[in-house]
Each structure stands twice: as structure tokens, then as C-alpha cells.
């Protein structure tokens, strides 16, 4: 997707934090020296183009509930079917195909660990595949931001 100069500035400045106030888009506009309408239009375009997932909090897993990273070794021929089944769970996010015998990797989130255990059991019963359950033990870095850098 095309990323214009204002998008780039919005992303670089506000992916780590944004003003918490009644009119956050106006506050961003004032900081960037443009109009609130321009900020709203730009964010709307980013969202439509697929580059912006959402605006708001990223929850701290350990405080917000329970989560785990799960991997499945899915036979090639069943990949589409299993991936679609996994996507069907609202508790699943970040479902990726990776180059490995364990080829389907996704994150399960829920209000508590028993909820996660039920989901894992359901996935195993549904797919006949035993999930690798890899909960986070320690975070050494959790920053998901990345710099867009200069336009090239």
C-alpha cells in the first residue's frame, strides 16, 4: 500500500503512545501541524488499506487475562481447512504459516488459563493434531513498534 508523508509521521510518532484526552485526533493534529480532518482521513485510509489494525490499547497479557503461543504441525493437504477452523475462534489472533514442521502458529487469549486449556482441548479434538502450548515465561522485550524510516 502507498504510505504518504502524514501517514509516516503518524505511525512513527503514535505507534508507541498517543494523547489520552477527549479529542485525541485534534491533539495529534496540533502536534503535527495539520488539521484534525486530515488526521482522521489519513487514519481512515490506513485502516482501509490494511496497514492499521486499530487504534487504542494493546493489553498486557499477564494483567488482562491469559494467553499462550500455540503451534500445530498440519499436513499440507489439510492446511486451508485447519487454518480456517483456527481462525474461527474469536480468541485466536496472529495466525501465521511458518516454514517448519510445526507450520501453523497462533496466539490464544482468554480471561483465564482454564479457558485456554479448554480451547487447546477443543482444538486437539477438532483437528486430531496435538498443539504445542508455549506460554510466555518471561518477556525481555515486548515493544511491537518498528520504524518506517525514510521514504525510499
Amino acid at each position, binding site marked *: 500500500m502507498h504510505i504518504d508523508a502524514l501517514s509516516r509521521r503518524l505511525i512513527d510518532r503514535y505507534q508507541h503512545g498517543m494523547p489520552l484526552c477527549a479529542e485525541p485526533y485534534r491533539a495529534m493534529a496540533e502536534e503535527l501541524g495539520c488539521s484534525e480532518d486530515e488526521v482522521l482521513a489519513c487514519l481512515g485510509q490506513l485502516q482501509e488499506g490494511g*496497514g492499521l489494525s486499530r487504534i487504542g490499547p494493546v493489553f498486557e497479557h499477564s494483567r488482562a*487475562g491469559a494467553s499462550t503461543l500455540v503451534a500445530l504441525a498440519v499436513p499440507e493437504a489439510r492446511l486451508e481447512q485447519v487454518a*480456517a477452523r483456527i481462525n474461527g475462534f474469536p480468541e485466536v489472533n496472529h495466525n501465521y504459516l511458518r*516454514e517448519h514442521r*510445526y507450520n501453523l502458529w497462533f496466539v490464544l487469549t*482468554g480471561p483465564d488459563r482454564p479457558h485456554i486449556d479448554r480451547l487447546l482441548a477443543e482444538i486437539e479434538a477438532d483437528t486430531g493434531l496435538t498443539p504445542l502450548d508455549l506460554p510466555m515465561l518471561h518477556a525481555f522485550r515486548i515493544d511491537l513498534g518498528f520504524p518506517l524510516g525514510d521514504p525510499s
Partner: protein
Amino acid sequence: MTGCLNDLQALQLRRLLEGGLPLAARPYQRLAEQIGSVEERVLEQIQRWQEEGLFRRVGLVLKHRALGFRANAMLVMDIPDAQVEEVGRRLGQAAGVNLCYQRPRRLPHWPYNLFCMVHGREREQVCQLIGRLLADNGLSNVPHQLLFSTRAFKQCGGRFAPPLVETANG
């Protein structure tokens, strides 16, 4: 002086926030209307949650693939337990590493206990970065694997808040 949200309103607000703020001049007022409250109370609640550490951050949540970061590698390593904390801390500070987590081994299927995510525009660039990262930290000889993602089936935020129906019944 305003009061707090009640438990149901607080839960509803969490669910709404998991879906993202509306793109409107007064986004918190929109959320407040949906839970039968007022903008000021919603902002106070969010401020409180932020102070309590419920959020890692509040900002723009991006999809790196759509933004041109298509080379996304998960580096997994088998680090001796006694060293994993020190190595994790070092790699977590290294340039280009977006995430660094310790996770349990699942022997015999899965021997790796330290995970790093590295995003880049080109695969070759990511491979070079990881090669340097390992060499600079004396890790070239530890058992490791590089798992590039080749397709995103789903990419969205976590859904932590329990379903409202459970609360209503409980």
C-alpha cells in the same frame, strides 16, 4: 466529581477497547454512549487502567505486512536454563529485535526456550541481521532455527474480556 463505571460498564468498555477506538472527533464520548455512561468517566477509567498496568501501550496498532515489512522471522534458540535470562536480556536490547520471550521447552517435540521476532522488508536483510546478532552474542553454535512466516491467516488484537453472557449468568 464523577463516579466510577459499574462492573458491567467496565467490562463492556474493555470489550469495546479491544476492538479499537472509533475514528471520530470525540471517540470516548462515542464509547460512553454505547455503555450508558459519559465521556469523563470513560477517560478516568482508561487512565486508571493505564496506571494499573493493564495496557502495554495505547496508540496505533499496525499490520507490518501491509506496511511493507514482509520478511518476518521467528528465531528460536535452545539456551541453557542458567544463561537464558542473561542472553534474553541482551538480545531484547539488540537493534532489530521486536520481541524477545522465554517460553517452555516441550521435549521431545520442541527443544527451544528463547524466542526473538525480527521484522524487515527483505528476507536476505533479516537473515544477515540475525547472523550478526548470533555472532555478536557468541551464540552461533547454540542450537537454533529460523522460522519465516510466509502467510498471515489472521492478525488482530487479543480478546481477553470474558463474554458478557458469562458475567450476566454468574
